[in-house]
């Protein structure tokens, strides 16, 4: 599903966020990305979603080489990926329902079918009763769930979540982890960045640890290879 081959990302200004990272994530895996802040977790996720491009190295996602992806092909590539953001990135000028409808709309789906799917996604995250509400009136945990609903409504094969449990109390965090596990059980590949090690221990799954842009720990059952720091 995802293949990194000696990937380096250097931002303008010289900061090297990732250095020579190689890893492989198979279809249907649930992978946790951990490391201190600034370790390169967000950059790694952005590279997978082709929000950033690698400075060097090769990334293959869904069989497509990110570096060679044309600008015009980018939207279609992104439609196969559900993105969950730490800051939600919800649209506050429209209802909860319309927020979830947006990805379907973008993909050219409309009318009754789209509405049905949007409602199903809201149901999965337990927000069906809040359809007509404005996102600003939702609690932090509810906003995160709305963001998840938006990410999964188009049934992507891959979901990337950047610190989805940050700023949430434990009860909410567990709720969201349960959701992720449910998605994983129906075959969705998930890459979740978090520093909540407690949750990882509880829910299992593979762990990839970054430190200063380098891969330092690839947990059991793994095919990850990487250049370890000396």
């Amino acid at each position, binding site marked *: 599903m995802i293949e990194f081959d000696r990937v380096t990302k250097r931002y*303008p200004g010289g900061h090297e966020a990732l250095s020579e990272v190689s890893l492989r994530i198979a279809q249907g895996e649930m992978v946790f990305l951990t490391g201190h802040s600034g370790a390169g977790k967000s950059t790694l996720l952005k590279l997978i*979603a082709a*929000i*950033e*491009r690698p400075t060097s190295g090769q990334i293959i996602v869904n069989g497509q080489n990110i570096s060679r992806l044309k600008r*015009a092909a980018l*939207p*279609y*590539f*992104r*439609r196969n990926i559900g*993105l969950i953001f730490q800051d939600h*990135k*919800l*649209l506050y*000028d429209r209802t909860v329902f319309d927020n979830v409808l*947006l*990805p379907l*709309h*973008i*993909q*050219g*789906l*409309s*009318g009754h079918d789209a509405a049905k799917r949007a409602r199903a996604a809201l149901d999965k995250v337990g927000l069906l009763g809040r359809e007509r509400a404005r996102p600003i009136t939702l609690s932090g945990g509810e906003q995160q769930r709305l963001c998840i609903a*938006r990410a999964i409504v*188009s049934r992507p094969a891959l979901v990337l979540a950047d610190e989805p449990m940050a700023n949430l109390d434990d009860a909410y965090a567990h709720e969201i982890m349960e959701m992720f596990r449910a998605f994983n059980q129906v075959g969705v590949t998930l890459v979740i960045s978090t520093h909540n090690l407690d949750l990882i221990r509880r829910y299992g799954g593979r762990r990839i640890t970054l430190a200063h842009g380098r891969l330092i720990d690839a947990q059991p059952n793994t095919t990850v290879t990487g250049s370890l720091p000396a």
Partner: protein
Amino acid sequence: MSAWVEHNLHSLRVAFKRLIDAPFASLFTVLVIAVALSLPAGLYLALANLQRLAGNVPTEAELSLFLKTEVGLEQARRLAAKLATRPEVRHVRLIDRDAALAQLAAAGLGEVAAALPANPLPHTLVVSARDPDPTSLERLREALARLPEVERVNLDTDWARRLAALLALGRDLVTLLAILLGLALAVITGNTIRLQIYAQRDEIEVARLIGATDRFIRRPFLYFGALQGLAGGLAAWLLLAVTALLLEDSVARLADSYGTTFRLTGLAAPEAAALLATSTLLGLAGAYFAVGYTLRGLDTPR
């Protein structure tokens, strides 16, 4: 296909909503566009009316052929008949020298005429041309002046030429104004669109992250530009109609003082349609360039 139609309708709705959600800002922009449009359109109308007025004046495109004194009446008749067969001549009228003298007398110069020892006037042919256009009149004049029987040809085309030149100048002015103000319209629209895009940055960013194509993002803004242009065109039309209404009385009084009746005409249906189409297209063009330019500016650096 139906989703495409749906999204277009949706974009139109969104654009319309954005337009009426900021009523004052929209009103001012529309007014600015209307003024910018009504200037060339108004000048065009004034010109059209002037042209019509000029058309009402009997512009007898007549040439007076003064024949040589040795040409006799019979010869003059023959010449008149011959000239009447020319394609560019409508008809020819002969004024023989006695009639000319009588005309002179009737014009109040009887005493002068009576004092003359002999009639000094030649026979005269009044040729009315088919085509009142100054250049063809001039060509006809030259041709007639070459006839051996003709002493002199009088053609008073000066005023016609001046009017034609004035109208041509007016038309050039309309074209120039239209181009300049059309450009201004596109820039005005582009600028409002640019501000809108900055206001919608979050939405655009999110839409891109979840796989929106540029076309999808661009569409509501294009509709907005077109709608705004259309509204501006309608307002310009209204502005012109109101102006014509206000001027009607004074124009009628002016015409009355000349002993004629004259009514201002507004934009005819095809002209109005052209005005609306132009304003819509200019709005669309302004939006297109603004969106393209601004969206490229919003691109995340890679």
